[in-house]
């Protein structure tokens, strides 16, 4: 088989040599045969004739030999391609317009597919990733992010369905290599982690069961390839080096392969240590006794090949019940119903990712949209091809007449279109490579940037190749088929310009069909674009309850630092004074949480609202420094703001939101009322000193939560993390630099993280809507351009074919306006028809987006009216130029025009 292919290739490459040899060989044969016949007594001329008859026609034999060598098929293709290149090269304008249209279509498809591939399709680079499942407790409130250590132990020790269960615990650590500490994503893993995943070390070794045996006894660390490269310049002597993680020393024992980033898509784990070292790097939580379900312990199981998923699920849930009975005896009914109803097995083949659930639907919608873009681009190119084929009609007719089969001519024409598509595909791939990072910019960024591999893998390349090929065949075949059907005789008889009337009609009716199809699909896409843009606009109109503009945020995280308890509070306040003193800063404050980033819960006890179970009502809370309301632009409705006197030891005070006041104190003045707050209960009741406006906290779309603000200075155990906010008119970069300088001048050895503007944080909270609105608008513009080009092309062609008729009309007294209307009327009729066809399709298609819309339904007529209006305007603009040209026709010239 291989031999065969090589032989054919060789024959093809040395085609000229082969031809000569074939000729020599047959001539040699003939010479011998002639000699033989002469010896038999024939005259030389007769001998030559007989020899040639015996061989059966020199050219025919040669052809059969070429066929036998297997080069014929390839040769024709090479011929076709050469010819196609020559033909395309002769009309650069047509070629560039067609290639560009296709490049835009294919590029858009490839870009979206690249993102889809990176987020949803790539498998983890581990052994048999299909067998990996995350064990996740779930209830009516959805699937829990994490698990707990005892659940992991239960599954590990008692399940028979899995060949192993591992546990990992990702976290952010302060990592020091001597000098300023850096915030790094790290994880603690059980000893079987690398073994079960089948990941081998690139340098040194990975972690083993041995490393995970003695509590606190194995301070060893494995680095990611990226971190090794970034921090150690791929120095192999890194083995044995000491790094400090949250102040504890660890020895580097190995580096993982470059493609392995851990089990979470988009988040690169840079340092891995054994679970036995959790107390040394953790936040002080005892993982063996911790009964809570925190988001940070993730158990991953590998299903045995002999066990079905259903069987494993059944077993896991029996064990889950056993675990609940043993370790969670006092669990409330609500907790059971909402969070711990069952244990799910979630496929971990593609890696775990929070963003995936949020973005998979929008990406599918976008994928559908770019599919439409491509079809519309194809329709354009098909139109161009047909008009061109019309111009080449004589050439084609001639080829058919001298005996080329119809299939052969169609093949030649399709080769041209595939060539166009291939060029479009190559340029489209380049577009996609440029565009994909822009797409990533739409996704919300965590503390450490999102790491998504966007280099096109084989799947993306295959996608582009197949798309290009299919488009080539799709838009090439129909025109090729049509053009070879036209009447040969009339084509040959007619002059180059005039051609067969039938062909002109065919071109125009095909062109009309294409344009109607383009309009219909454009309407679908534009309706989507308008719909998502309106939805985003609605989101932007929401009153947030605070002023997000001109606010810069940054975080200070004391986790893993040597600073504890009251020192942290002191440092936070000192840093606040520092940044407040920066010139141009109008107000500054810090708080535990900030809107659209994270929230904090609290339980409130209000006299008259006691519950049967003795627990308080769950509300939202924030510990804030003085100046918080001014900095965030939150309006104080009644009472007073916090003062510097509200510190530990003085009366505990709180500000409440309007909705909380309305709920607990309807029609009364809440100022001066006392309530109990869970975390301050020991120090007695808290006095309400003011009421502030409601703010959106967890998302723009939801309701504002009932909230209470308390002074950070009254916290008994200060939070280790604080978000600082600065209100200033200074340019963001400039201000950020000043903040860094001020914080570094304190020499705390603590890095600043997540410095960004409040507007950016707001944007990230509506990332999905922004992605949809921005991209669909972009694609909307693209199809508008393509559809306009389609209408323009059709109308211009029509006018050029009707110069004669228009001339006659004008000679008979038609005015300019009549001629304009003649052309515009046709364009408008096509648009109307296209819209009529597209409308029901748009209505059905938009249903798929219903759940992604804010204060808008997919059926909203305004959306469709707007989309149709935009299309109509674009069509009139596109048709106006040819219409004007028609109106400028000089009747005298026109009548001579042949």
């Amino acid at each position, binding site marked *: 088989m291989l031999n065969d292919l090589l032989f054919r290739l060789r024959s093809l490459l040395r085609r000229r040599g082969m031809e000569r*040899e074939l000729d*020599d060989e*047959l001539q*040699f*044969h003939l*010479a011998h045969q002639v000699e033989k016949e002469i010896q038999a007594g024939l005259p030389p001329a007769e001998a030559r004739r007989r020899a040639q008859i015996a*061989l059966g026609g020199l050219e025919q034999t040669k052809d*059969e*030999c070429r066929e*036998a060598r297997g080069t014929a098929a390839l040769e024709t293709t090479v011929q076709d391609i050469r010819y196609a290149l020559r033909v395309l090269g002769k009309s650069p304008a047509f070629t560039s317009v067609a290639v560009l249209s296709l490049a835009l279509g294919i590029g858009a498809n490839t870009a979206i597919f690249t993102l889809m591939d990176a987020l949803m399709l790539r498998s983890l680079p581990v052994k048999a990733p299909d067998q990996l499942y995350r064990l996740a407790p779930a209830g009516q409130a959805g699937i829990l992010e994490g698990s707990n250590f005892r659940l992991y132990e239960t599954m590990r020790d008692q399940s028979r369905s899995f060949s192993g269960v591992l546990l990992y615990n990702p976290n952010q650590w302060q990592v020091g290599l001597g000098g300023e500490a850096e915030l790094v994503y790290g994880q603690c893993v059980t000893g079987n982690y690398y073994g079960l995943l089948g990941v081998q070390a690139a340098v040194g070794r990975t972690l083993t069961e041995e490393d995970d045996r003695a509590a606190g006894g194995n301070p060893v660390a494995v680095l990611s390839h990226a971190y090794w490269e970034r921090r150690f310049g791929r120095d192999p002597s890194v083995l044995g080096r000491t790094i400090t993680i949250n102040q504890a020393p660890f020895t580097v024992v190995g580096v993982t392969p470059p493609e392995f980033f851990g089990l979470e898509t988009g988040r690169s784990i840079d340092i891995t240590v054994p679970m036995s070292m959790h107390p040394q790097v953790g936040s002080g939580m005892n993982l063996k006794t911790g009964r809570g379900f925190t988001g940070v312990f993730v158990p991953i199981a590998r299903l045995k090949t002999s066990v079905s998923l259903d069987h494993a699920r059944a077993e896991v849930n029996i064990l889950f019940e056993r675990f609940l009975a043993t370790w969670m005896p006092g669990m409330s009914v609500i907790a059971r119903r909402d969070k711990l109803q069952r244990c799910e097995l979630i496929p971990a083949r593609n890696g775990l990712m929070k963003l995936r659930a949020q973005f998979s639907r929008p990406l599918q919608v976008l994928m559908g949209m770019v599919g439409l873009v491509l079809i519309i681009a194809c329709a354009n190119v098909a139109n161009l091809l047909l008009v061109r084929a019309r111009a080449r009609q004589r050439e084609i007719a001639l080829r058919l007449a001298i005996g080329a089969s119809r299939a052969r001519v169609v093949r030649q024409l399709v080769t041209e279109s595939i060539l166009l598509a291939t060029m479009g595909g190559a340029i489209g791939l380049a577009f996609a490579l440029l565009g994909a990072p822009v797409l990533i910019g739409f996704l919300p960024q965590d503390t450490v940037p999102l790491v998504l591999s966007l280099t096109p893998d084989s799947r993306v390349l295959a996608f582009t190749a197949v798309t290009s090929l299919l488009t080539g065949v799709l838009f090439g075949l129909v025109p090729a088929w049509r053009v070879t059907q036209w009447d040969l005789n009339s084509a040959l008889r007619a002059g180059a310009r005039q051609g067969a009337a039938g062909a002109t009609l065919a071109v125009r009716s095909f062109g009309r069909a294409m344009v109607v199809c383009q309009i219909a699909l454009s309407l679908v896409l534009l309706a989507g674009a308008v719909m998502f843009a309106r939805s985003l606009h609605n989101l932007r109109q929401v009153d947030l309850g605070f002023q997000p503009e001109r606010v810069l945020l940054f975080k200070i995280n004391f986790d893993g630092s040597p600073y504890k308890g009251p020192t942290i509070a002191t440092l936070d306040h000192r840093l606040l004074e520092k940044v407040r003193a920066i010139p141009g800063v109008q107000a500054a404050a810090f708080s535990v949480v900030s809107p659209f980033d994270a929230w904090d819960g609290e339980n409130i006890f209000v006299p008259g609202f006691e519950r049967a179970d003795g627990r308080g009502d769950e509300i939202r809370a924030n510990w804030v420094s003085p100046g918080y309301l001014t900095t965030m632009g939150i309006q104080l409705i009644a009472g007073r703001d916090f003062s510097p006197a509200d510190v530990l030891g003085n009366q505990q005070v709180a500000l409440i939101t309007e909705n909380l006041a309305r709920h607990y104190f309807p029609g009364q003045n809440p100022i001066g009322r006392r309530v109990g707050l869970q975390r301050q209960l020991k120090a007695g009741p808290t006095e309400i000193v003011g009421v502030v406006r409601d703010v959106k906290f967890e998302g723009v779309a939801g309701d504002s939560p009932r909230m209470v603000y308390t002074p950070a200075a009254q916290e008994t155990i200060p939070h280790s993390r604080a978000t600082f906010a600065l209100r200033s008119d200074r340019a963001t970069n400039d201000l950020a630099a000043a903040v860094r300088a001020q914080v570094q001048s304190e020499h705390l050895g603590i890095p600043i993280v997540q410095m960004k503007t409040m507007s950016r944080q707001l944007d990230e909270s509506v990332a999905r809507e922004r992605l949809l609105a921005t991209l669909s608008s972009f694609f909307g513009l693209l199809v508008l351009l393509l559809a306009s080009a389609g209408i323009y092309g059709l109308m211009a062609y029509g006018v050029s074919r009707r110069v004669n008729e228009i001339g006659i009309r004008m000679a008979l007294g038609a005015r300019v306006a009549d001629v304009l209307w003649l052309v515009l009327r046709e364009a408008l009729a096509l648009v109307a028809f296209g819209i009529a066809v597209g409308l029901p399709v748009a209505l059905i298609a938009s249903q798929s987006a219903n759940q992604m819309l804010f204060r808008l339904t997919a059926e909203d007529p305004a959306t469709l009216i707007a989309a149709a209006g935009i299309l109509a305007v674009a069509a009139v603009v596109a048709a106006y130029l040819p219409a004007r040209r028609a109106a400028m026709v000089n009747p005298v010239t026109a009548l001579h025009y042949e």
Partner: protein
Amino acid sequence: MAQDRIELPQGTLDLLILKTVALGPQHGWAISERIQQISRDVLQVQQGSLYPALHRLERRGWIKASWGTSDNNRKAKFYEMTRSGRKQLDAEAATWRKLAVAVSQVLETV
């Protein structure tokens, strides 16, 4: 005489070429002469079909070609057998014999 000649059955030309080339490197004309000599002029080999067959066998890798000088000092293309060609010849010859035996048996019994 002409009536005694029989047309070559489909697929047997390859076998005959292989058998001929097995005797030693030959050029195309010699192969065609040889086949007719050996078959005592009973088999009619279309010269026109000989060359495509040679090229086909070369593509399959059963014979290989090289340029040399013929008896009368002219440049000629010689074909010789390859190892896989010899295997193919053995296999095809065996099949052919079996077929021949089977067919003649059928003819005799009926």
